[in-house]
């Protein structure tokens, strides 16, 4: 049984370990991904960690041509846009994620509703390993 606090820091540690985790309230079954330390449904807040299966479908997306400096540093630009989106998991919760292995220059080929599978993008930064949650076409 995982004993880590139900926090964004834990959520990111789990991503580093290639696990997409949420918190579930044992009292009312409400699911929160990313995790919440407070059950905002029943306020009993008797939480436990649950791992998502990593399957879902695309709810919304965008192909970003003008990104922040951190994305430009990764090689993305007007000619090479990256895709970010919102993914509805099989478990019902939605998460923000990069959408990988799709063509940002051809947005018509990316469809709301398309099935996706989780993928973890690892990067070594100055502050150690950092993992970005991503999904790819299933």
């Amino acid at each position: 049984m995982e004993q880590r606090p139900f926090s964004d820091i834990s959520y990111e540690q789990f991503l580093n370990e290639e696990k997409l985790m949420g918190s579930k309230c044992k009292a009312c079954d409400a699911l929160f991904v990313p995790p919440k330390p407070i059950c905002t449904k029943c306020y009993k807040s008797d939480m436990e960690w649950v791992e998502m299966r990593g399957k879902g479908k695309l709810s919304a997306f965008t192909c970003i041509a003008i990104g922040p400096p951190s994305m430009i540093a990764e090689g993305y630009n007007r000619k090479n846009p990256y895709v970010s989106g919102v993914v509805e998991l099989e478990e019902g919760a939605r998460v923000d994620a990069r959408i990988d292995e799709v063509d940002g220059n051809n947005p018509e080929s990316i469809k709301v509703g398309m099935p996706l599978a989780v993928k973890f993008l690892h990067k070594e930064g100055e502050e150690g390993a950092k993992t970005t949650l991503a999904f790819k076409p299933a």
Partner: protein
Amino acid sequence: MAKRRKLGRGVAIVGAGMSKFGMFRDRDTKDVFAEAFNEMLASVDKGVDPKEIDALYVGNFTNDFFVHQSHWGPIVSDLIGHVPRPATRTEGACASSALAFREGVFAIASGFYDMVLVGGVEEMSKRTTEEVAEGLALATVPYEGKVGFTFPGVFGAVATAYFAKYGANREHLMDITIKSHNNAPLNPKAQFKLSIRDLMNAKAASLEKKGIPVPEWKDEKDFLRDPKANPVVAWPMHLYDCCPISDGASCMLLVGEDMAKNFTDDPIYVAGIGQGSGRGLHACDDMTYFEATRYAAEEAYGMSGLKPEDIQFSEVHDCFSIAELIHIEDLGFFKPGQGFKAVEEGATRLDGPMPVNTSGGLKCKGHPVGATGISQLYEVWTQLRGKADKRQVPKKDLRIGAAHNLGGTGGTCTFTILERR
């Protein structure tokens, strides 16, 4: 459900000012606020002694990032000679000055103060486009920023959800852009004063001059479809779907309703105010509306006793074309999923049944984020007093106008209804 609320004491607007909006290399935050303040003083019909102002509330989102200076309350206070009386900065991302307005209203309604200056300011043009995108993205929900979402990206994603649910497409967003660009040339303070047709013709002339073959654009939409003329920022948001980077300031003088006639025979009254908070895209129930806007609207309608059909015109927070579409539905002007058809039919044009963003909107008037909320109310105030000149709403007995301001991914939304009696 929002509770039914009322003010303990009525509040009136007796003066208002707004700087020109634009990118000003040689002017800073204080310069644009001074411009707005001077216009506000001159606008008070029977005059006002600024020493009578009890308190100042000034909205600013993130000059901390844009010009590396925080703590704008006392800086603006000193600028206008308000020291040592109190000055408070409010922050609600792009809704920062709508919050200043609300604080001012509450301060008077409580009976604590009689006269309050509320304003907003932002200085964005000293940064590169990429840096501004990064600065604005500070107001996304943390999980959004971490996967690369910028604000054009957030609203691009919202657009794909709206398109998928209701069958709208980019062509409908172009109707909004074209409408805003038609209003803006009539607003002397607007940052962009050219219609899309004028822009198209100017672009053609400039290409011709350079000896580059001019594409044959049939009409405005044909121009907007051309990815060279209208490149992608965050698909489906293209350049002409996005508001610009702007500097600017706005302010308003509020007094107790009982004192209003001491300053003008034509005060504008606060009929309803509402504010809501919202979650990020991943956590909201449905990405095709903003729950914070709906809550704010319910609160403002409840307080005023008015209904959406009573609103004669409105400014709404069109940071992106899709945003305008969503707001006109959330505010009840059109049913969910019907807004794009109403826009297509011209309902929101200046001469339509429900004029929206007569100022040119954030898209063309400009969007110095912290100044925007009160600049929207400035437009409503100007229209209600019949002083909007060429962009005056052509309706008889103009009495009720409203403004909607949004911050972040719908994290902070306000709706304010003003009334001329």
